[in-house]
């Protein structure tokens, strides 16, 4: 049978950001998929050699909008460890609260886009409607909806008043109720299952050997979540990673859906234990040495390698984002699938090209 090569992207209705896949097909079945990037590469790592290490907090926040706070937290955590800075307990708990708010709105954004990838427009709109409440919380507490700029080296720049804590808790009650209303649709609807069950399956062994991270890995039965490292205040709250075993698009959807509810629980725990005290400590001196900092973003483990030599600029900042680790999965998931399944499978890894093209 003759082979056909079809370019998928960089501009495609289902893709929120530009990525290209060179698909080789026999009839309607994919035999090979080769990804290509470079449409929006910014070289932000290189800026670390020019900008002050404090200014780099603002730069790393702009690697990705959806998980901006978590990028900043990972970077700050690395510099703090390198300089021997002890972050105040209140700041550690606030980091948990805002990072989990980011996870909720990222997963709701993804659930909407995922529903859109198989034409379920009303589900897409419902998810994004709920997401607005989280963005309203971000805006009311930090002044910004997405890039909230609350992390600084040594702690946090924003605090939550007792009134704000109560208001967030009541808003989360509504959010939880509305997310649970979607549960029947996401978990049992015929359309959702028809388009996702058995699509793009990976076994736990395949997922692990491909170096996958986050919900893409946990949907294949591997209980790996960087929050288990206990960074920020995760060592002081109850946390168990969400795991599914089927390894297909449906399992990845279930993991993210359950994680949305889990994040609400983590925020409640953090708010219940939120200690009084300082927000940040004063930072003196300059970083020196090599450090690795890892945290769990909505898409999985983000990895920061930082090398500093005692100057105001860093010698090297290297960022391995979760989507960069999950792209090789597409090369294993797509062969054997139908062309019409490509949008659903590509979306199932929750691709963030902004992160990848940092």
């Amino acid at each position, binding site marked *: 049978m003759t082979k056909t090569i079809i370019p998928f992207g960089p501009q495609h209705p289902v893709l929120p950001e530009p990525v290209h896949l060179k698909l080789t097909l026999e009839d309607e079945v994919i035999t090979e998929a080769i990804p290509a*990037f470079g449409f929006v*590469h910014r070289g932000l790592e290189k800026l670390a050699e020019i900008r002050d290490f404090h200014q780099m907090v603002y730069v790393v926040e702009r690697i990705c909008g959806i998980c901006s706070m978590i990028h900043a937290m990972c970077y700050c955590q690395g510099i703090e460890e390198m300089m021997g800075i002890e972050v105040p307990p209140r700041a550690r708990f606030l980091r948990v609260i805002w990072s989990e708010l980011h996870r909720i709105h990222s997963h709701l954004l993804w659930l909407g886009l995922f529903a859109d990838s198989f034409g379920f427009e009303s589900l897409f709109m419902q998810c994004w409607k709920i997401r607005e409440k989280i963005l309203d919380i971000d805006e009311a507490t930090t002044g910004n909806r997405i890039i909230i700029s609350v992390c600084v080296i040594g702690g946090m720049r924003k605090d939550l008043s007792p009134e704000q804590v109560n208001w967030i808790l009541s808003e989360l009650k509504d959010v939880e109720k509305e997310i649970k209303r979607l549960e029947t649709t996401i978990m049992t609807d015929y359309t959702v299952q028809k388009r996702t069950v058995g699509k793009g399956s990976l076994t736990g062994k395949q997922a692990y050997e491909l*170096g996958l991270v986050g919900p893409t890995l946990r949907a294949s039965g591997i209980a790996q979540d960087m929050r288990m490292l206990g960074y920020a205040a995760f060592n002081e709250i109850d946390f168990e990673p969400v795991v599914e075993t089927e390894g297909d698009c449906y399992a990845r959807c279930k993991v993210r859906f359950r994680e949305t509810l889990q994040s609400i629980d983590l925020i409640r725990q953090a708010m219940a234990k939120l200690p009084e005290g300082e927000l940040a400590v004063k930072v003196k001196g300059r970083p020196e040495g090599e450090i*690795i900092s890892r945290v769990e973003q909505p898409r999985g483990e983000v990895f920061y*390698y930082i090398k500093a030599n005692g100057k105001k600029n860093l010698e090297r900042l*290297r960022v391995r984002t979760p989507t960069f*680790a999950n792209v090789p999965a597409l090369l294993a998931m797509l062969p054997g699938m139908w062309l019409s399944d490509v949008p659903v499978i590509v979306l199932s890894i929750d691709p963030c090209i902004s992160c990848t093209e940092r």
Partner: protein
Amino acid sequence: MIGQVIAISPENVVGETAKMKVEGYRFVTLSCVELDETTVDILYHFDREFQLKHFRLTVPKDAPVPSISPVYFAAFLVENEIQDLFGIRFQGLAIDYDRTLYLDEDVKKTPFCKYVVIKTAPLCEVPGEKAS
């Protein structure tokens, strides 16, 4: 500060990486650090049960480095990235973009090097295709 770092040479990088795979390590990524005008450090990061282990390979910029993508397939992406940004040549890549993962074909410079290297010839031949 970054955990266990083992210095390795280009001759044993593939063999040592294969041992890591047998021991159940997950491939995390590679980090390339320019040391001076002629040398770079390539750090290989692996993880097993949240414990990181690293290899440090110090090589001249113009010397080819064996690719570990035949062992850990996922490494092809980051090796191509380093090839684009630092001009380091990886041999035996599972998929070789020949410095076009991020860059246009006519770009000769290595954008992440402080001491710029100008590409004068194709770094690698793409399997099944003739090098231009």
